[in-house]
């Protein structure tokens, strides 16, 4: 099965093209409203308002109700043809008895054979990892410790990869991140960490959790440097930046792994990158991760599933197949600010992985959109009304 999946990997994943409406390439607000006015007769006055102006807003509004760019990123991607998993069964109706039988056999294989094997591997792996990292933690800091720690980490991740049946194809390994920078990647699932760490050693950044996950975090930090924060510290951006800068400055320490989106999205797009890591001024190593949804959807919908439930679903899929592209390192250019740099990196990652590059913030999964965006729309429209000669507009517009 591994070989077959690897062959399928070679063709770049087709984006799901089955949209509901055909959208024309978007013109600016000004152009659209002018277009409306050209067809309407009317007296010319210095402040131009037409009753047809609402047409523009109502059509845009309706289009977004039928199909918008953001809400669909927070649920699993729809497949073009069914992959025999009930969880991917959205719009397909009962087709034939053969299909049902195949599904039944698939169910047995997945839950009866694959899953127990994987769970065993996972449990073994975690226990071994906890024991060995504690052991390595006792050693004095030095080359031996670093070497053993790397080996133990790689072993741990190797177990995880087998336990979840992740089939990874790494591209351009010559661009692998080095010790002096930060590795950024698009985020779809916690498994991203496992996939990247399977091929190299990184320092993780994140919040310290409780429970099993917290135990693993504490074990990891005993043998190699990771940056874990308490809940309170996370809010303090300066503290975060300082710790990252210190870590990067130390050339003996591994590259840091950061997911600038800040949340999991469904791997059809890349959403806004948080500028924190891009302000530090070190080299950025972008990585693009793309999953093939046909073997199992890897997206973690955290509002629907907890972590354990999610992992069990992963273990009962066929496999998780993905491609990782290491992109050439990027540095901030002269005159480019952190946000522009972040957008440039984001565009590169999206282009490589065949994902849509969005300006929308991933936190829209849970939070409301900022009023400022609406105010921007209102400002643009006011400009159309007043014409560009209004005294209020200054250079920043």
């Amino acid at each position: 099965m591994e070989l077959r999946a690897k062959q399928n990997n070679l063709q770049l994943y087709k984006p799901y093209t089955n949209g509901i409406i055909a959208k024309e390439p978007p013109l600016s607000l000004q152009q659209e409203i002018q277009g409306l006015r050209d067809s309407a007769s009317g007296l010319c006055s210095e402040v131009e308002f037409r009753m047809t102006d609402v047409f523009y807003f109502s059509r845009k509004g309706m289009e977004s109700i039928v199909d918008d760019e953001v809400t669909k990123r927070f649920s699993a991607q729809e497949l073009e043809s069914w992959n025999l998993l009930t969880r991917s069964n959205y719009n397909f109706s009962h087709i034939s008895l053969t299909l049902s039988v195949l599904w039944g056999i698939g169910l047995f294989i997945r839950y009866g054979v694959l899953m127990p094997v994987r769970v065993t591997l996972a449990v073994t792996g975690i226990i071994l990892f906890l024991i060995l990292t504690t052991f390595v933690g006792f050693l004095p800091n030095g080359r031996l410790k670093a070497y053993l720690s790397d080996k133990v980490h790689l072993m741990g991740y190797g177990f995880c990869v087998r336990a979840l049946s992740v089939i990874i194809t790494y591209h351009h390994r010559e661009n692998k991140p080095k010790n002096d920078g930060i590795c950024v990647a698009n985020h779809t699932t916690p498994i991203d960490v496992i996939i990247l760490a399977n091929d190299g050693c990184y320092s993780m950044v994140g919040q310290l959790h409780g429970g099993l996950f917290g135990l693993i975090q504490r074990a990891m930090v005993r043998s190699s440097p990771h940056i874990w924060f308490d809940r309170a510290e996370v809010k303090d951006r300066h503290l975060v930046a300082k710790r990252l800068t210190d870590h990067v400055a130390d050339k003996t320490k591994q590259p840091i792994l950061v997911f600038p989106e800040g949340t999991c999205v469904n791997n059809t797009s890349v959403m806004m990158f948080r500028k924190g890591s891009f302000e530090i001024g070190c080299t950025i190593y972008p990585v693009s991760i793309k999953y093939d949804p046909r073997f199992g959807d890897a997206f973690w919908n955290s509002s629907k599933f907890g972590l354990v439930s999610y992992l069990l679903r992963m273990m009962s899929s066929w496999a998780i197949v993905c491609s990782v592209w290491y992109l050439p390192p990027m540095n901030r250019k002269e005159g480019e600010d952190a946000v522009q740099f972040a957008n440039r990196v984001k565009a590169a990652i999206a282009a490589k992985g065949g994902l849509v590059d969005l300006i929308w913030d991933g936190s829209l999964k849970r939070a409301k959109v900022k009023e400022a965006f609406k105010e921007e729309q209102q400002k643009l429209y006011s400009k159309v009304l007043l014409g560009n000669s209004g005294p209020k507009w200054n250079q920043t517009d």
Partner: protein
Amino acid sequence: MGSRASTLLREEEIEEIKKETGFSHSQITRLYSRFTSLDKGENGTLSREDFQRIPELAINPLGDRIINAFFPEGEDQVNFRGFMRTLAHFRPIEDNEKNKNPPTSEPLNSRTNKLLFAFRLYDLDRDDKISRDELLQVLRMMVGVNISDEQLGSIADRTIQEADTNGDNSISFSEFIKVLEKVDVEQKMSIRFLH
């Protein structure tokens, strides 16, 4: 084992919606899928909050008015039939000619009904007249804080002056139609649904 979506939407319902709105079978099932994905409460109806969760709609200056168009007078929930009925206004008009059965009454996406939709965006209290006050409120929604009250007031006055033919200082639906008679409403108030 059927699909999650269409087991909740019966064939008879699809047929009824088809007759009423003119959408095709596949369009209806796709839009039903969209409806259920917006329905976070999973109770078969959408509330205003469900619509406001769409960022592109939330930043639309007339977002609230558009959302309101889905909800009948005094109600807070819209079911799939209501959803489709409102969307039907935006079906392109040419599609009607492809229909084998001509509709018995005026189709939802006729020119008049499209104009009625736009009229209702302005008519806040649903009294079939656009008063100066209502026009001002809608203008205020569209421009935000960027234009002064006086300027906005004079825009409203001028607009009513141009449209009002019977001197009641408000715009009725027939006056509205007259003002827009040369506009290509069909194209501007239509969305190209695929299939």
